[in-house]
């Protein structure tokens, strides 16, 4: 009994890390532009396809080189998205930019279907296998997810606190006008931020390959639950989204002990809606973003 609970706990934490990363990725976009990237689940899918479809299956390169190459490609793609959609639309009412990103998502998913074909596929050897710790069985993929997420969160924190670019990005998050007056190029800053978030999306997409089959919907549920993680933990606040993501991952995995597993997906949304109604600023949020 305890063994199975621990197992659920670990896979819950791993899924929670994924949700937390999704939360980080769109919090970056939200903080720098005040908009939400509704195409982020499609970016996750695109990352998975570029890595698995092109670099591994077609070119047969080493996975490490494949990951690096995919990150570069997706950074450039993200920057192009910023130039084409976010920068022109960020000063208009939110609904216009939201529609822009939503339609971008459609274009991406159609392009993916045409380029890589509609048949789902998997990478059978990538991050495959299980590890025994005592009498608990843990999938290698889950360990990788937890380690990579931890490294990424620490790395991003250091980047934001110490480097010049990171500080400039935080500055833009707080006040765009003041940042512009201090000589920070807000437009270029946003391009870089969106590129960075596209890279985080790519990492998520690559890490969930062993958990799902690679198809057009690989990112949909993760993407939606990533929103939920931000709301539970505290919108617009990076550590909050990670905590929120892990809470959702654990709660939804633990809920399968009590309720039928088919309702597992409902749990995250119920958690999200109840937090919105009771505590809209989240567990760790500052509440300042609430009225926006």
């Amino acid at each position, binding site marked *: 009994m305890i063994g199975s609970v621990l197992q659920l706990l670990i896979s819950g934490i791993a899924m929670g890390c994924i949700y937390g990363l999704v939360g980080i990725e769109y919090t970056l976009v939200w903080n720098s532009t005040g908009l939400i990237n509704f195409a982020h689940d499609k970016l996750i899918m695109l990352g998975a396809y570029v890595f698995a479809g092109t670099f591994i299956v077609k070119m047969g390169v080493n996975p490490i080189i494949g990951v690096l190459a995919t990150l570069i490609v997706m950074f450039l793609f993200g920057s192009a998205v910023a130039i*084409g959609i976010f920068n022109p639309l960020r000063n208009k*009412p939110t*609904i216009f930019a939201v*529609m822009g990103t939503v*339609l971008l998502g*459609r274009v991406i998913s159609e392009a993916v279907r045409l380029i890589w074909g509609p048949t789902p596929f998997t990478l059978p050897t990538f991050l495959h296998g299980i590890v025994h710790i005592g009498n608990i069985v843990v999938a290698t993929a889950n360990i990788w997810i937890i380690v990579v997420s931890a490294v990424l969160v620490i790395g991003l924190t250091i980047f934001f606190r110490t480097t010049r670019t990171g500080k400039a990005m935080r500055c833009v998050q707080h006040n765009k006008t003041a940042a512009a007056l201090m000589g920070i190029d807000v437009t270029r800053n946003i391009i870089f931020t969106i590129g960075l978030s596209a890279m985080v999306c790519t990492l998520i997409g690559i890490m969930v390959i062993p958990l799902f089959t690679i198809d057009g919907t690989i990112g949909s549920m993760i993407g*939606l639950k990533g929103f939920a993680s931000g709301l539970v933990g505290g919108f617009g606040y990076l550590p909050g989204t990670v905590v929120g993501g892990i809470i959702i991952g654990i709660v939804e995995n633990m809920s399968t002990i009590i309720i039928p597993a088919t309702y597992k997906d*409902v749990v995250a949304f119920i958690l999200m809606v109840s937090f*919105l109604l009771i505590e809209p600023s989240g567990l760790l949020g500052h509440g300042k973003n609430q009225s*926006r």
Partner: protein
Amino acid sequence: MDMKKTTRIVLLGILSVGLLILPIIDKNGYRQLLFDQVFINMIVVMGLNFISGLTGQMNLGTAGIIGCGAYASTLLCMKLNLPVAVGFLAAILMGFIIGQCLGYPSLRVSGVYLSLTTIGFSEITRLVLTNWIGFTGGSAGVPNIPRLQLFGITFDSAFKNYYLYLVLAVLLAIFASRVVYSKWGRAFKAIRDNIEAVSACGIDIAKLKILAFTLAAMYGCFAGALYANMVGYINPTTFNLDLSINYLVMLMLGGIGSVAGNIIGAVTVTLLPEFLRFMQNYYWLVFSIIALLFAVFLPNGIVSLFTGKDKKAPWGVLGKFWIPKREKEGKTEP
């Protein structure tokens, strides 16, 4: 002026005659079904216009609303053996309830938060409809839905539905455009433009937001019941986030805030992919790219071409006949 009025009447006359004889000329069953779908989409978008277009609250839960309407009317009729007309009334009641419930969170949260709440509502609805197999039939859906019987006519073909839906769409469009220019409509727009000023004028924002949501949900649920009646089979996978997005695309593409824009948007987005079908595999990609270009370069929608804002455009002349004068004078930029 008189000349202009005559032209407008003549054009409207041609349009209505065209609409009346369209299904008689075109006997293709698929295209007739498509025209029915256009009317249903019009009704949904006109509803969505109240909340997302006028009041400026992003609603991404349209699919959930339509799904609730479709399932409410269908299940009530099938489980209790009631006439379908009662099911339609039940769908409207359902819309009222959903509107009141969804409107409540919009008091506490707004903007992006609200769109996330509505996504949550829509996803919960879809997942419950999929998993509550004993009651809703699960992902297999509900087949053999009884058709509407009214005045001794059974509305069981796309041809008969066409006229019913045409009448309903016209009535609801008239109602919607009356609302847009009523006290409510002005207050809705005011909430979108400057919420502090509205409350300073002594207008109850909470009541109005819930009202806008209720109108939207009632239109949506009614359209859901019409949809169930049209296809005769409903399935929870239809009512996903993609559908909600489709309705927002219609709202955007046509033009936010005006009923004429809603109608243009619903017609364009429903029929344009069919015209692009000759591109076979690429048609949906091309359509998405066209929509994306519209969103970036013409964010105020097709209707903004006619409102004379862009004076150099040759089609601006058309606007003189189509757009009511008060709309031309009003600001179109939300």
